[in-house]
């Protein structure tokens, strides 16, 4: 029997970056495949290539035998591929029911009035996904879970042969996860082929028939959820093979003067609670890691500390209240973040990026700082005149860290520096961090999902899970006490 969806040799290249390399899989009707991988592994790119949002560089995508690679999205969608997006921008003046009705409309310019049965079907679908009570309300008045139900409803309305679900459970409570699982299973029971895309196996294990794990654009494991969770490569990617901890003989945390104190910090994005009652402390000169899966709230935590997102709770830096201060003022005060997305000025040269970081330094201080950074990251000296966009991923990350260091921070926040980087580069970065830690008195707060990378330097570790801190302790106890939650 022809599989509903068959992907073969799929490859996607963005300029110099090979985002997806030779990925192949097939899903039959009535089957659920989980596609998992950490951030930057290429799983979302695979999904976009299937739907034609990105054009594959090579390889084939077949829907029931028909080659659709390179087709525009709307034609692929009409062929029978539906997607449940994680977020969408609902229309401002249309009710939930009308949103479902749109999904039921034919792609016609001349159709001025919907068929009579459209409204009936939309009601039936609303009832099926549990939106019956709110179907006459505007989406912006709905709680987060209902917005996700609406996305499901729109996918159901197209009656697709293949359903792609992007991070099915992100931001949902346990009860909602159970509801959604039932709905996703109902796709399978109706004979649809389902592809679940998620960060980790654990979340989707109960739902999937098979799992394909990706890392850095390549397939690293495939099999049942249990098999993949046992797989050595997968364990190494998520947990690191052998967790090394090199304790630096430092003062005990309690004896340090606190530099950053966060207490009862909560952040919500509209309806979704991204951070809930988080408290943590970083002492002067300390190296603290916050580990957690993607979506646990690490970036939100850092952005809240840096004044980039509004938050409730108390934030003190060196004894001073940070609330009400602009992000720029906080950064000038010595609390500098090197963001996950790097945010380099792509069109500017390496030197210009660094000079921007050193804008508020005196001429001599700037030169001294540059010399020191070029020692720390020699490659940046060689690349000085090159525009930042043309650097490799690892070089870009080094530049991002160097630019943050140009500001002479007292506390450096590093948000997931390993994102999308190859193991060799991680080793280089790790050495640089080690030198940084040994040769300066800088305080570092590192956020990571890659525990192998996060633990060696850390003196203390916090584990963030579903917007809350669930564990705190020294790195050598982490694997035993909290490792299971991180696969």
């Amino acid at each position, binding site marked *: 029997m022809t599989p509903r969806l068959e992907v073969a040799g799929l490859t996607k290249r963005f300029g110099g970056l090979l985002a997806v390399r030779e990925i192949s899989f097939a899903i039959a009707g009535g089957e659920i495949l989980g596609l998992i991988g950490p951030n930057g592994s290429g799983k979302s790119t695979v999904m976009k290539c299937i*739907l*034609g*949002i990105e054009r594959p560089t090579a390889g084939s995508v077949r829907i029931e035998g028909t080659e659709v690679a390179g087709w*525009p*999205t*709307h034609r692929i*969608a*009409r062929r029978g591929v*539906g*997607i449940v*997006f994680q977020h*969408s*921008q*609902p*229309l*401002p*003046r*249309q009710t939930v029911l*009308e949103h479902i*009705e*749109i*999904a039921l*409309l034919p*792609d*016609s*310019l*001349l*159709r*001025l*009035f*919907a068929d009579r049965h459209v409204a009936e079907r939309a009601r039936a679908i609303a009832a099926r996904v549990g939106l019956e009570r709110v179907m006459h309300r505007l989406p912006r008045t709905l709680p987060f879970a209902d917005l996700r139900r609406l996305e499901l409803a*729109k996918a159901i309305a*197209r009656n697709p042969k293949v359903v792609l679900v992007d991070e099915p459970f992100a931001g949902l409570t346990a009860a909602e996860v159970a509801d959604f699982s039932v709905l996703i299973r109902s796709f399978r029971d109706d004979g649809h082929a389902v592809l679940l895309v998620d960060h980790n196996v654990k979340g989707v294990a109960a739902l999937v028939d098979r799992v394909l794990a990706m890392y850095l654009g390549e397939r690293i494991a495939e099999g049942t959820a249990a098999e993949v969770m046992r797989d050595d490569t997968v364990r190494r990617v998520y947990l690191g093979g052998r967790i090394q901890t090199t304790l630096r003989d430092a003062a005990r945390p309690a004896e340090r003067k606190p530099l950053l104190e966060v207490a009862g910090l909560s952040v919500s994005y509209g309806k979704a609670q991204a951070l809930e009652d988080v408290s943590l402390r970083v002492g002067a000169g300390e190296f603290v890691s916050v580990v957690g899966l993607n979506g646990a709230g690490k970036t939100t935590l850092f952005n809240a500390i840096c004044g980039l997102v509004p938050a409730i709770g108390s934030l003190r830096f060196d004894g001073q209240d940070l609330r009400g201060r602009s992000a720029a003022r906080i950064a000038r005060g010595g609390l500098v973040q090197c963001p996950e997305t790097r945010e380099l000025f792509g069109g500017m040269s390496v030197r210009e990026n660094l000079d921007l970081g050193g804008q508020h330094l005196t001429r001599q201080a700037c030169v001294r700082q540059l010399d020191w950074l070029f020692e720390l990251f020699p490659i940046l000296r060689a690349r000085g005149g090159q525009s930042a966009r043309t650097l490799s991923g690892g070089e870009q990350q080094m530049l991002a860290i160097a630019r943050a260091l140009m500001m002479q921070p007292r506390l450096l926040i590093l948000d997931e520096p390993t994102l999308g980087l190859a193991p060799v580069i991680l080793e280089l970065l790790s050495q640089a961090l080690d030198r940084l830690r040994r040769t300066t008195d800088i305080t570092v707060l590192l956020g990571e999902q890659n525990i192998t990378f996060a633990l060696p330097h850390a003196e203390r570790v916090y584990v963030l899970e579903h917007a809350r801190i669930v564990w705190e302790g020294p790195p050598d106890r982490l694997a035993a006490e909290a490792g299971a939650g991180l696969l």
Partner: protein
Amino acid sequence: MLRSRNFWLAMVSLVALTLLPLGVSGYILGLLTVAYYYAVAAMAWDLLFGFAGEVNFGPSFLVGLGAYTAALLNVYAAMPILPCLLAAAAAAVTGGLVLAVPALRLRGPYFGLVTLVAVLLLQNILVLFSGVTGGEIGLPLPDVLAIDDHANYWYALGFMTISGGLLFGLSRSSAGLILQASGQDAVQAAALGFNVAKHKLAAFCISALFSGLAGAMLVFYLGTVSVGTVVDISIGVQFIIAAVLGGRRTIIGAAIGSIFLIVAGEVLRPLGELSTFVVSTFALVVILFFPGGFLGLLAGRRG
């Protein structure tokens, strides 16, 4: 629909506007006549901005194409008014297509920039060939719609009512919903199987059709065509301000905005040069603090 308060409000306003010539001077009727033609251009613009999500910085390109096509055919080919209007609409749609097909492939602000450059280009060509087009000075037309103020007023009101009704109906239709979805989130709309480019292009053509017609009707009312009255960037800006002032995504708001701008300009005429300044400042405040415009304010108060 018959129960909706808005519907009755619109009906009452229309009846009042129809009866207006019985009570006010020809001068005021003349002002409103121009306002109604502007209103059509502004409503056509809102179909693009409010629904297709594309900012057309050059609405006067489409209006100007219509106006000059009608005028040139009328002057040099002695074509009667009705065929001139049809040709004007056809020219605006064709010009719009030539512009939009490549421009809609661009992302972000580039579509808007292309439309902006198009106006300058048209303006330049018209001035360059001023021997034929009349350029800045203008070209008188042998034919006019009517000589009587009242008749002219009713032509304009009828044209605005019909255009507004069609555009409003379209915006509320199934095709309008798809267009709005495409404007809001193109990837999402494509994932639902909608050909986003097709819907946006269609919206651009419809917008061009009404803009071109409005331009042509306007010159047959004025009896003359000049760059300053139908093509100049500032004319286009006026349509845009009118639409945003009245309320984005409402169609009707654009008409209200147009009438408001012209009436306000007139009421403030004693201030002389200052009147433009006052109206612009007012528009700026509304756009900054009440981006929903007049109708958004009303809806907000009720909700």
